[in-house]
């Protein structure tokens, strides 16, 4: 496929958006405006953006707890994502989901609280597309750690045997929280597991957004054509802690973290754009300023949003809410 200037600039812009929104969210944790666990994907942008961008608006997306970048790329406005983490009514799940964000109008089905619970959900969304005869696909992001869970096996196998239109994208950042991959797996590549399901497994440089985009695009085409699922594994690294309650240095060498920061996926695409003469520094600077300006407006919207009304505690439990639910009082 052809890599056009506009595609490269779009990837660049979305990666910047992803990075800066997450940096702002980290500040909101310190300001105690974001509650609960925030799992930043800083360092993962080539995957969160590069693998999400090939999707259409009506395609289905499920991701891990590190899903801010994917949600932004799928088109959820930053105000609704940040607002969700702040527990405000502007949030894409009305402040009831937090890290479990979703937006069904954009095909964002959400995350599983139990890590690795998303494989079977993605298979189900793919089943829906197949049964309805649409050419939609379902994209399932996961970390290498959850490929050790049973639902990985069940979801991938079912998708494979029924040739469901699902793309399983592994964001392999070597650590499940503090646990190194070598402590819990004897293989280097999660994608090698694809062989046991009779489906393709592809390993890419997870910090190379163009490589990710191309690999995923191919898998999406394959899925739309009814040829079934693919596992794509991108090798990357998270710069931050598992979540914002720890900084990731108890179990990782600072030198290792620094080395990966040198491989920043955003600087990499920036260099590609400039070195090949695709864009000028000035053009890129303009994009950055626009992104920042937009984010500031969006953050303001989130910050000004009211908290959910008390009655929201009791709504949305059931579609047919005739079920007896106890009130707050006795």
């Amino acid at each position, binding site marked *: 496929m052809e890599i056009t200037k506009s595609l490269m600039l779009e990837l660049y812009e979305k990666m910047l958006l992803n990075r800066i929104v997450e940096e702002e969210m980290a500040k909101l944790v310190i300001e105690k405006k974001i509650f609960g666990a925030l799992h930043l994907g800083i360092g993962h942008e080539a995957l969160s953006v590069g693998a999400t961008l090939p999707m259409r608006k009506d395609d289905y997306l499920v991701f891990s707890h590190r899903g801010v970048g994917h949600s932004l790329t799928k088109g959820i406005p930053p105000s609704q994502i940040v607002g969700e983490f702040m527990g405000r009514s502007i949030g894409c*799940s009305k402040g009831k989901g937090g890290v479990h964000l979703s937006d069904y109008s954009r095909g964002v*089905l959400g995350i599983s609280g139990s890590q690795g619970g998303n494989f079977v*959900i*993605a298979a189900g969304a793919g089943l*829906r*597309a197949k049964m309805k005869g649409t050419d939609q696909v379902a994209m399932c992001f996961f970390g290498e750690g959850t490929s050790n869970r049973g639902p990985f096996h*069940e979801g991938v196998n079912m998708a494979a*045997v029924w040739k469901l239109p699902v793309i399983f994208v592994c964001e392999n950042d070597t650590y499940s929280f503090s646990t190194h991959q070598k402590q819990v797996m004897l293989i280097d590549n999660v994608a090698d597991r694809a062989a046991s399901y009779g489906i393709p497994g592809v390993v890419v440089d997870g910090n190379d957004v163009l490589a990710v985009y191309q690999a995923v695009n191919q898998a999406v085409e394959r899925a739309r054509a009814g040829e079934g699922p693919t596992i794509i594994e991108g090798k990357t690294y998270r710069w931050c802690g598992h979540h914002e309650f720890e900084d990731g240095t108890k179990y990782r060498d600072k030198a290792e973290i620094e080395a990966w920061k040198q491989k920043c996926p955003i600087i990499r695409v920036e260099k590609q754009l400039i070195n090949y003469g695709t864009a000028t520094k000035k053009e890129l600077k303009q994009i950055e300023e626009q992104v920042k300006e937009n984010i500031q407006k969006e953050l303001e919207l989130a910050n000004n949003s009211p908290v959910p009304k008390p009655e929201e505690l009791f709504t949305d439990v059931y*579609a047919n809410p005739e079920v007896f639910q106890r009130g707050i009082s006795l």
Partner: protein
Amino acid sequence: MREITYAEALNEALREEMERDDTVFIMGQDVGKFGGIFGVTKGLYEKFGQKRVRDTPLSESAIIGGAVGAAAAGGMRPVCELMLADFVGVCVDEIYNKAGKWKYMHGGTPDISIVVRAPMGAKGGGGSEHSQCPEALFMHGTGLKMLVPSTPYDAKGLLKGAIRDNDPVVFFEHKLLYVLKGQVPADDYLVPIGKAAVRKEGTDVTILAYSLMVHKAIEAALTLEEQGISAEVIDLRSLIPLDLETIFTSVAKTGRVVIAHEANKRGGMGAEISAVISEQCFKELKGPIARVAAPDVPIPFSPDLEQLYLPNAEKIITGVKLVLEK
């Protein structure tokens, strides 16, 4: 009216709903050509084909999670069959969390319009992991509905209602009831979800039961009648929502309550129902509530021990006499 079995009634409900609505489909182990371990899906594969009657891998998480995903993605109404209710143990996350919470957690969308059918209960020699009644697990959950029909008529009417319902429904079928015959209309009808049925009227004591235990309660009530004790038997039919109105009306009349269920006592359905009655009808109560349930041990394999373990009419009679004495 013609008589058919509980299993045939369920089969008819599935067939009618699949004919009526092409978004209804079945997923489970051996539900296709084999027709399901208890024959409930017999003939459906032949009629609707493998696309809508899907034999799955032995993957309970994928069966339920796949159903949740298909429903959440929009407009599908999967009916899942777990081979045995005991196997909820390997898909609790998908039922308890995904089906039960994904609507609320996502701010009101999507509807998780799935039904999870599961054969429960002891039928002789099943042992600890093939005989359980796990309804209390889900009673504590949120966002779910839970149905426990005791008759062929209710089996058909409730299953049809469950399939049409936009909320996730856990549907427990007692294994010993599959062969029970009863009057079932051949045409379309629904049994309302959340309405209990008074199976026998009485004035001295209220016996609350569901599923197979309803039949044991009626047996007990008929024996008690011969001894001059008038027991009212209420078949709850629906555990979530619970028909509090019917329960409270009966408690107001009798002032004495026995709750009977096959599952073990600790943290069981009886605990919740008893607590609600104590909270809401304390003044109407003439004495403490009794729970007739299995002991808090795993279900034994030996058929002799199993009989000792299971609640029955005799134990319900003992429970009734206990509350009448106090």
